[in-house]
């Protein structure tokens, strides 16, 4: 481990959807695996301080409108989100932005996997 990094654990110990909560300084960070990629977000919802990373990790539901008179068809899209279990505020894993209002952002951290070990970069 180099300066500015925190070791999380073995990458192959994570299944998709798994979350590992670590301490980064005085805050909790959730390290999340989704679609084979690792993400790290502050585990504190900007709404009410809930554990934002401890809710379900899913694909975001999106709607597609086929034109006038057509139903808006819903399907799970490409973007992965995590939802705070307290009230359902949901955030993109990629950016930490709230899915409905990007003025709310959970701080995010870079994650690297080196020699099979997951590290969260804290610089």
């Amino acid at each position, binding site marked *: 481990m180099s300066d500015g990094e925190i070791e999380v654990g073995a990458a192959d110990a994570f299944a998709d959807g798994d979350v590992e909560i670590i301490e980064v300084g005085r805050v909790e960070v959730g390290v999340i695996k989704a679609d084979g990629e690792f993400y790290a977000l502050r585990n504190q919802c900007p709404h009410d301080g809930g554990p934002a990373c401890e809710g379900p990790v899913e694909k*975001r539901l999106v709607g597609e*409108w086929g034109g*006038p*008179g057509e139903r*808006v068809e*819903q399907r799970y899209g490409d973007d992965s989100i995590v939802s705070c279990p307290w009230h359902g*505020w*949901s955030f993109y894993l990629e950016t930490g932005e709230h*899915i409905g*209002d990007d003025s709310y952002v959970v701080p995010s951290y870079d994650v690297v996997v080196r020699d099979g070990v997951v590290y969260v970069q804290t610089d």
Partner: protein
Amino acid sequence: MIDPAEHLVVDCDWHYADTFDQIAPYMPEPWKTKFQNSGWDSTGVNQGLSAFFPTSTGNRSNYGKIDREFSDYPQGGDEKADVIEGMEFLDIDATLQISHLILAMGGVTADDRRVESFIKGYIDYMLAEVLDPAEGIYGLAPLPYHDIDASMDVLDRIEDERAFKGVVMVTAGASPPLGNRKYDPIYERCEALGLPVVYHTGGSGLDDYVRAGYEEMIETHTLGFLESNMSQIVSVACQGVPEKFPDLDIVFMESGVTYLPGLISRLDEEYLKRAEEAPLLDAPPGDYISDFYFGTQPLEESARPDLLEICFDMLGTEHLLYASDYPHWDYDSPNIITDLPMLDDEQRKDILGRNASEVFGL
């Protein structure tokens, strides 16, 4: 402070106090003959929308307290000359006429052609006898939105008539609510024609507002008019009508302004918790609602000034349209706008006429 007499005043909600006797000769057959043989005469619906055995609680004229010098409201029977005299009295330069009787259309739940026939007759009557752009008398065409084909007929009828500047969708009784995909063809056509959609609340069903048993109009009118507009605003915004039809101008009429910050705040709070349920939106619904236009009447001028200031700030004075609602019992004169201390003169001029002139292409 400005004098309305010296500035453009556009009234976006003047109610033409029509009667069925006036409209029936213009109705399409067979309703033209059926109505004239019916014995309903001028009381196809109770003109005052109230009676001793009422269709709606309370009495529009407040049991004789209210009188209108330039209209036969609430019984109806106005003529073009009455409108012109009333406009002069109120220093109004242009009006958008909305049928008084059509506000009761929500009470018709049968799948028949009464509403369609009335509207088609009303449009021909107004074109023949009342509307006159040279006098500043324009119209908004009601739509029988429960029947999309009939609504398309109405749009075909008015598309080349420059006296009609938009359409009306009466919010009371609209089911499914007006954000439903059923109404997409109407919105698509109005967007293409550049016709604003004016959602106007109405008196149908006031006695049964959510629950039956209210006793006075102060209760039902306060609650019912608000609910009819709120329910449609939520539906139109959440179902993504502004995303589907981005060039469509959306106007909500006749519930004042103070309900809007509360509704927007509540809806946006829900959206932060359930954003996936409004999948067409790219922003909180309040961002879309504040792009709508709102008629000012009945403006809550007795409210705390700082509350009104917040309302104007959230909605934007460029989105507010003066509306008199004349000759209805709770109408607002233009002085309601000019007397507001928290507005500057340019904002007053915008609300009184300039905004409407742009929205409706007058």
